[in-house]
């Protein structure tokens, strides 16, 4: 029997695919927007990022039909490793080339993108944002680590962006959690409605034969005097079935689909036996 798909795994898988595609295309564009010498560390890191993203994408595509949560989270969290490492080099390159750039802008954008795509497991996104925060602090506080000219109030402005990204990721996680809860409730309600439908069908199919037994037994008792002793256990068994019937029919669960309006619109009878043959939801 097929297992139901894990919505968390699917969500994490989608996030991982999008992030890796974004990193892959972003890195490819950077070969044009900020060319570097073929043997330079930046070029090496760019190729590493391209290969890294391609490998993750291939691995993710292989498990597209049944994604695994742990693997998808790993693919999401580790996706920007080589980009993260090349940030200080890029800063230095842009600064020494005299290009107009705002330090830490790439980190801010990257972190906001991660936050917007964050899976429900918010700690994964927090860890990524933490790694970016460490990189920003190292670049800012260690003079030889990257760019040396920063805007006012750095790195606090960038860290404020990261805090905003963390809030976005946390909000998204809460939203996704609420969605999962609703999905679970819907699934339980569907199962309960199905159980009610089956119960109704059983009652419908069982009660007419029970009625026939009841009436025929009465006729037997009326027509055969003295009443045959075999009638007594049948009468008692019937009483027990009637008691069971009362219990079942007194359970109020809103009908097969809980929608009285539909029943009001279509007053046609229904196929109780067909209901029992329907597959489970």
């Amino acid at each position, binding site marked *: 029997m097929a297992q139901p798909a894990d919505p968390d795994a699917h969500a994490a898988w989608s996030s991982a695919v999008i992030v890796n595609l974004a990193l892959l295309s972003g890195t490819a564009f950077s070969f044009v927007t900020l060319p570097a010498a073929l043997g330079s560390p930046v070029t090496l890191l760019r190729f590493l990022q391209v290969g890294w993203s391609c490998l993750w994408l291939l691995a993710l595509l292989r498990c597209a039909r049944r994604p695994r949560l742990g693997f998808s989270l790993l693919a999401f969290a580790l996706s920007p490793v080589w980009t993260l490492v090349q940030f200080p080099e890029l800063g230095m390159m842009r600064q020494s080339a005299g290009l107009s750039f705002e330090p830490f802008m790439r980190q801010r954008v990257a972190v906001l993108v991660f936050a917007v795509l964050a899976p429900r497991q918010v700690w994964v996104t927090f860890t990524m944002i933490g790694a970016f925060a460490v990189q920003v602090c190292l670049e800012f506080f260690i003079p030889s680590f990257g760019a040396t000219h920063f805007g006012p109030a750095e790195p606090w402005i960038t860290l404020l962006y990261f805090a905003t990204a963390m809030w976005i990721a946390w909000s998204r996680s809460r939203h996704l959690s609420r969605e999962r809860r609703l999905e679970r409730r819907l699934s339980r309600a569907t199962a309960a409605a199905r159980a*009610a439908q089956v*119960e*109704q069908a059983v*009652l*419908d*199919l*069982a*009660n*007419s*034969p*029970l*009625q*026939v*037994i*009841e*009436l*025929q037994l*009465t*006729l037997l008792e*009326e027509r055969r005097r003295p009443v045959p002793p075999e009638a007594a256990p049948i009468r008692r068994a*019937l009483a027990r079935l*009637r008691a069971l*019937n*009362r219990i*079942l*029919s*007194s*359970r*109020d*669960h*809103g*009908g*097969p*689909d809980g*929608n*009285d309006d*539909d*029943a*009001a619109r279509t*007053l*046609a*009878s*229904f*196929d*109780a036996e*067909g209901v029992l043959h329907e597959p489970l939801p």
Partner: protein
Amino acid sequence: MSAPTIALLDDDEDLRQSVAEIFDVLGQNCLALPSVAAIKAAREEVLGCELVILDVNLGDGQPSGIDAYQWLRSQRFAGKIAFLTGHARSHPLVARAAALGERVLQKPITTSELRALAVEPG
């Protein structure tokens, strides 16, 4: 044979026969019919009855006892109408039947309940 005083609508043949036999023992003539179409076909006899007992669910896709009820009322049937159903009270069709203000009896009913239904005033 005297004109029927009770009409029964039920899609279960054994049940129709059993109810008719019980009413026969009780001294009543019961006209047992399997469908809404049969009720309409026996219009004169049905409208002459004092009591009509309607099953609610009459089989897949068939008009239900509610349809029969509406037809009877549209024909200005002045007698008593009761629903006899195997469903729980919460089923939409049964809930609809109960909302019509008529008696809804849950199968299986006893002979004494059947007798009471026949003799009590409408």
